[in-house]
């Protein structure tokens, strides 16, 4: 397998883009990434997306976007893994270059969630779960996370406020990210008083849905030529699965797909969790941050919660997470999110993260989850 590098990044702001269609958002991100990479061609395009068919009535995104960005004729496919589709598309793009099939590919994540009513979007997001045995009983995606948070609180004797530090960190970081959806600080008091969605999960535990697109250009490291200066190497790419439904797991409080994909990634990169300087994790809900930290090897079981209490997750802390706002405050355009994470990891490793720059960042990890970590895609980047 060949070494693969990211040579260009592009993104739109995450928000309710009433004035822009899915194709406009996608095109904007791809053209920005191509400009950043100084390339005008790629051999293939892989599109991470979850709900274009359901909410926009548009499938076949590969052909649509390849043509829009002036690349009609190339290989172009949509990759779907629920909210982890962005990470999945990056994985497919990585394989295409690493295998020697192509020298340069574009990976895009694009999602438009605000085209429909809230109830309809809530029902659509539940498609990430088991349609017959979860969604058919009125179980929303938030409810699944609430079931885990309640049980976690029960086993480790916690209250909802113990989770506040994760959302507070995400909001603090989003203030300095011009592409973030919520650029406002969150106080402990606001967290405490926020509206419930599915108890114990409140609005301030939950990532907001939004529209957005992000893209990266991948090239074989040995073909970089003039792009070498700002290239960031993909040191590992790994994915794994768990049962799609919570009820089929022997131990619902352990994200085994996260553990499997992280272990494979550490092995490929030849490092351990201790070597990670930046971790863009899938904080769709506070409980996911906690459980991802544990299953990825950063904390003992039941101890992930302490990262938030002790301030270790800030950009100056021991393990900075969600450094550009994370899903919670940058926003969560589900199938696009995994590519946003890659864009942010590259930004950190280039040293271009401004006020949120992690000092001496050299190794960054991203983790994109589909469903309640039924699919977990982990990437490690080094500069």
């Amino acid at each position, binding site marked *: 397998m060949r070494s693969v590098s990211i040579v260009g990044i592009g993104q739109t702001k995450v928000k309710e883009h009433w004035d822009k269609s899915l194709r406009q958002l996608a095109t904007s991100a791809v053209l920005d990434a191509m400009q950043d990479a100084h390339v005008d061609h790629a051999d293939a395009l892989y599109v991470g997306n979850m709900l274009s068919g359901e909410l926009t009535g548009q499938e076949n995104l590969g052909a649509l976007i390849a043509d829009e960005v002036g690349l009609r004729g190339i290989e172009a496919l949509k990759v779907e893994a629920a909210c982890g589709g962005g990470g999945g598309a990056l994985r497919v793009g990585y394989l295409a270059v690493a295998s020697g099939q192509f020298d340069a590919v574009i990976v895009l994540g694009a999602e438009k969630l605000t085209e429909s009513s809230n109830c309809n979007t809530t029902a659509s997001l539940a498609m990430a779960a088991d349609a017959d045995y979860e969604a058919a009983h009125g179980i929303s995606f938030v*409810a699944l996370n609430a079931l885990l948070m309640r049980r976690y609180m029960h086993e480790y004797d916690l209250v909802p406020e113990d989770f506040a530090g994760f959302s507070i960190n995400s909001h603090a970081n989003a203030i300095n990210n011009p592409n973030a959806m919520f650029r406002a600080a969150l106080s402990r008091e606001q967290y405490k008083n926020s509206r419930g969605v599915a108890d114990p999960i409140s609005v301030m535990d939950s990532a907001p849905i939004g529209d957005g697109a992000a893209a990266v250009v991948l090239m074989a490291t040995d073909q970089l030529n003039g792009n070498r200066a700002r290239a960031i190497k993909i040191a590992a790419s790994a994915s794994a699965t768990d049962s799609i439904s919570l009820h089929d797991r022997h131990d619902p409080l352990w994200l085994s797909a996260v553990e499997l994909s992280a272990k494979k990634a550490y092995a490929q990169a030849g490092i351990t969790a201790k070597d990670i300087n930046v971790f863009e994790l899938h904080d769709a809900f506070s409980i996911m941050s906690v459980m991802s930290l544990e299953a990825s090897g950063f904390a003992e079981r039941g101890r992930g919660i302490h990262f938030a209490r002790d301030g270790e997750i800030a950009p100056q802390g021991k393990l900075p997470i969600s450094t550009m706002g994370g899903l919670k405050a940058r926003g969560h355009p589900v199938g696009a999110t995994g590519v946003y994470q890659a864009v942010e990891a590259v930004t950190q490793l280039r040293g271009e993260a401004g006020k949120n720059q992690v000092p001496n960042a050299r190794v960054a990890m991203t983790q994109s989850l589909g469903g309640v970590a039924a699919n977990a895609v982990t990437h490690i980047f080094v500069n």
Partner: protein
Amino acid sequence: MNQLSNEPIYTTVWIGSLAHWAIGSFGVSMDLARNWRLKDQRYRLAGTICNNCGTKFFPPREVCTECKSRDLRVHEFDGHGAVYSFTTLTQAPMGFEEMVPYIIGMIKLDEGPMIEAQITDVNPSDVKIGQRVEMVTRKLREYGDAGLIVYGYKFRPLANGN
């Protein structure tokens, strides 16, 4: 063969048309065949048991997750268990808006598997982890005024159950 007509093709077209009409009227399909296919699970908690290692499954599986055997038979669960976790929904997906607030539970069945369903016949503030529950048949949802009414399992607390 249906009793009203000797022309099964006609019947098929009629069901298709009905589903199409439902999509037009409510923005969602009524999932006629799909709801019918799930009747054994919804009404009788029909799962499977592995003939090789004895592991029980709900929902039913064709391959045993424990020993990978493909030799499984139907097993009906008695529907008794305890609450593993629960939540009360105040923001519902489409089709469930009128039930808000409602309680979702993960139930650990006495016979082994975990099952996710609504918890009914109880105030949200009275539900507790570890509480004993039993399966009951209740209305799961309606597909509009002229649409299907879907029934299936929910769980209710047992009297004196802790």
